[in-house]
């Protein structure tokens, strides 16, 4: 097992294998998104209080979940990069950050668009909204710090430490709605009591689950594509990169 991981984690093997894996993320993503969006926006029933407006959650909730998921990826692969000094872990962390920042931004914007008609405001400084905004700033800080060094090794070290420090924000985002009074509603699906009996009707839950899987697949595809580019850039002086380029040129 360990040997297999080490073999896969070598940039050269990763470049070769990832090419075959990407379609397994990309095509299911397209299929699931089409089904999930049609189900969520057309088939799913209206909400008893919000009418049609609740449908924005089919993008908002999966995007918010991804914003936290990708941050955990950032911190974990940053930690692996620090301890075991696996090059690929640093690559994964680096290329994931802009994707995570985009999902965070999407969650914030869709939330604001929903909040205006429902709550009566675009934005409030409650614990949930504020901690999610801090997450966006963490992503931006991570990206700037990673770009502030000429040496990619130093850059990875510094930004990994930042990612691990910022990890504290993830439980704060998740529990903000239970620890404090917030304007944002509590968890409907993703809390221990709600996993068994979600506070959301099955006809609405199914498309939500489809969309959250589809967003995970999208992240997988985007991350692998970006990681392949980053690997080529970092290994540009290696012989295998020259061979790859020669082969592609044929």
């Amino acid at each position, binding site marked *: 097992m360990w040997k297999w991981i080490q073999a896969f984690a070598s940039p050269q093997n990763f470049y070769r294998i990832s090419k075959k894996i990407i379609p397994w993320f990309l095509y299911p993503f397209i299929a699931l998104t089409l089904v999930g969006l049609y189900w969520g926006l057309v088939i799913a029933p209206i909400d008893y209080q919000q009418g049609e407006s609740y449908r924005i959650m089919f993008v908002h909730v999966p995007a918010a979940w991804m914003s936290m998921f990708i941050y955990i990826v950032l911190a974990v692969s940053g930690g692996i990069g*620090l*301890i075991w000094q696996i090059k690929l872990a640093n690559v994964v962390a680096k290329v994931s950050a802009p994707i995570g920042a985009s999902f965070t931004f999407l969650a914030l914007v869709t939330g604001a668009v929903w909040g205006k008609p429902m*709550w009566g405001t675009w934005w*409030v400084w409650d614990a949930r909204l504020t901690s999610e905004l801090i997450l966006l700033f963490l992503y931006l800080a991570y990206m700037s710090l990673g770009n502030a060094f000429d040496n990619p090794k130093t850059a990875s070290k510094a930004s990994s430490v930042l990612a691990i420090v910022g990890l504290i924000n993830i439980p704060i985002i998740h529990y903000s709605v239970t620890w*404090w*009074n917030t*304007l944002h509603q509590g968890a409907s699906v993703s809390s221990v009591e709600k996993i068994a009996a979600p506070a*959301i009707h099955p006809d609405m839950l199914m498309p939500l689950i489809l969309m959250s899987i589809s967003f995970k697949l999208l992240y997988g595809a985007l991350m692998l594509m970006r990681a392949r580019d980053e690997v080529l850039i970092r290994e540009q002086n290696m012989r295998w990169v020259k061979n790859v380029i020669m082969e592609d040129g044929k």
Partner: protein
Amino acid sequence: MKKRQSRMIFVALLVLGVGLAGYLGLKAFNENLLYFFSPTDVVEGKAPTGKSFRLGGLVGVNSVKRDGIKVNFDVTDNANTFNVEYKGILPDLFREGQGIITTGSLINGTFVATEVLAKHDENYMPPEVADALEKTKQ
């Protein structure tokens, strides 16, 4: 091997240290992170006096009186109730029995609001299901 272990300890200490700092920080600022006060909090004197604060609770059933854009209603947590006066547009989700958060200040026992926000709960269901639930309750 030695080096890797020391790096492991560094990462573990980093996680522990930040976790501890976060825990203590949140504990210290807990009060400030409350977005609103319930009517009971206000009765117990937890809300600031003499300046504006946020009052949260349910809109009292049969308490909403409209007069043009002036609205008068009760906010309750089923233990204590405050009368709220507001002039302006109410959000879509505002209705009797709904959770709301309102900003303003207490003037002679009446909460004079400058802003009313509706709070949504975590329940999502089609209208037919809501009707059926309502019927079984009665």
